[in-house]
């Protein structure tokens, strides 16, 4: 990227309100996750009956839970969990889905038909239900829920990639590349992939948000991250039984999930404005 085009890219970023707000929230969450790797204000794993249900104080900003753990620390460590799930699940979807989509688009014919019909079937299954079924096969657990969400992401990216790639294959410069004797694989790498990258980045941000929501839902149902690892979804599940006398415990983790999803969705909108201005004007 030349210096002038990178300058205009940053100018676009600064001008997009969605990008700035969404980006700041996402950066804040990343920072929380990073800090929690080295330091949390209180205990995350240890159980201390003497300090259970402590109210909000200078030492415990959000109080403590039924095991005496500091709620703010749990939320911070939960950020780590959600971000890991998002990154891994979206990467699985991206690698497998984009690969299949590009293959379908380059090969056409029965390969395309097979890949697309397969993703059609998977769309008849609600996302969470597929994840529940996959977790049922693999057994409950953090890693398994990530794989389940990742598998769900595959057809999403496959469809998007194939649709966008098909449009690029008809362009004149691709035809020129074919005429000059370039093979399908080389064209895919040199021309198709770079041209659909912005659409994929925007979708990846949205799928990241969906992955966080799905992991929280699975953990809430007891199928995701297992104790003692902190997870927002499970915190919410544990808080529900205490809802009548510790209502705020149910409010914090849900608020964290909502903030993360809100930030990522805004970032996705902002990225679309920045990376594909034609698309945002059409909206």
């Amino acid at each position, binding site marked *: 990227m030349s210096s002038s085009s990178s300058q205009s890219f940053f100018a676009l970023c600064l001008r997009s309100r969605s990008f700035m707000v969404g980006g700041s929230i996402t950066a804040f969450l990343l920072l929380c996750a990073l800090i929690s790797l080295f330091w949390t204000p209180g205990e995350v794993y240890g159980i201390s009956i003497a300090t259970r249900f402590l109210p909000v104080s200078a030492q415990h900003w959000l109080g403590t839970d039924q095991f005496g753990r500091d709620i703010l620390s749990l939320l911070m460590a939960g950020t780590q969990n959600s971000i890991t799930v998002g990154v891994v699940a979206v990467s699985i979807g991206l690698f497998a889905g984009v690969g299949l989509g590009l293959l379908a688009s380059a090969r056409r014919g029965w390969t395309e038909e097979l890949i697309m019909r397969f993703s059609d079937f998977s*769309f*008849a299954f609600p996302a969470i239900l597929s994840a529940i079924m996959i977790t049922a096969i693999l057994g409950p657990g953090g890693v398994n829920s990530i794989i389940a969400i990742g598998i769900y992401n595959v057809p999403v990216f496959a469809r998007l990639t194939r649709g966008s790639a098909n449009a690029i294959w008809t362009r004149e410069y691709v035809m020129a590349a074919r005429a000059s004797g370039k093979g399908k694989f080389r064209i895919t790498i040199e021309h198709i992939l770079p041209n659909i990258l912005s659409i994929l980045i925007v979708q990846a941000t949205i799928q990241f948000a969906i992955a966080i929501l799905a992991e929280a839902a699975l953990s809430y*149902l007891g199928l995701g991250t297992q104790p003692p690892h902190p997870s927002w979804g499970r915190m919410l599940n544990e808080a529900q039984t205490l809802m009548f006398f510790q209502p705020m415990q149910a409010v914090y983790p849900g608020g964290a999930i909502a903030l993360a999803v809100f930030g990522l969705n*805004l970032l996705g909108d902002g990225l679309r404005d920045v990376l594909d201005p034609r698309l945002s004007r059409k909206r």
Partner: protein
Amino acid sequence: MTLLATLLGASIVIFIVMEILPGDPALVILGVEATDEAIALLTTELGLDRPALERYFDWIFGILQGDLGNSYAYKVPVWELVEGALKITVPLAILSMILSVALALVVGLYAAANHNKASDISLMGISQLGISIPNFWLAVLLILYFAVNLRWFPAGGFPGWDEGFWVCIKALILPAVALATVQGAILARITRSSVLEVFREDFVRTARAKGLSQRSTLWLHVLRNSMIPVITVMGLQFANLLAGTVIVENVFHMPGLGSTVLKAINNRDTIVVENVVLMLAAMVVVTNFIVDILYAVIDPRLKAHDI
């Protein structure tokens, strides 16, 4: 035809997935201390020692004849287990759909009519927030406020339709609102952008030029023409709505399809899981089929065979 093919495909996927599921139903029913003979006996009794292909065709032909088979865990016909659950999940999904469409139309039209004004910008900000809220968390918040604090609605459970229509609707309101808020927020954004798009069309300018008020133009011309994308997304969202019921039912401790399928997965009651998941997939497929028909109703230019 496509409808049947999709359902058949779905049934194959479900069956294969449940085949891979580890855990022997007979072992789960009898417990870890059961003898090998007892497990083998029960496996034969349940018919699980037969080839997979034979079991698949038995299942499919059974469904075609209205027989869903017997639950492994409870030894009763699957239909008996599912019948009561359907009477909760289906009304819940329909009620949520109605609420979300009502919410979307009111918010979307109001925002479009006040394009770029403060009310439009704040409504769209709120809808962005609505999309981000996990429905199960919203469900918990609704219980906290409306059931625990105000005591307007029950905090959970379902009385059963014999107890009276309104008592049941009252029990369904909070879960339906929890589900409808997220769906409604998504639909409101689509409604707004679709209405704005139609507002720019030539026929709208003509209608305005011949003296029709903004309001009449909106109701007579814009609304109908802007409904196609809204209905498309509604159909696509229905799958998510059903998935949402699985979780939200759990928050409200309602014995709907969601809790039935979760319990069946834990019991390795594969036949119940297969039937429930197929039912959910069928609901999604049928809804999208209805959406296709609605296209032609809304816009007669799109004849059914063109779709």
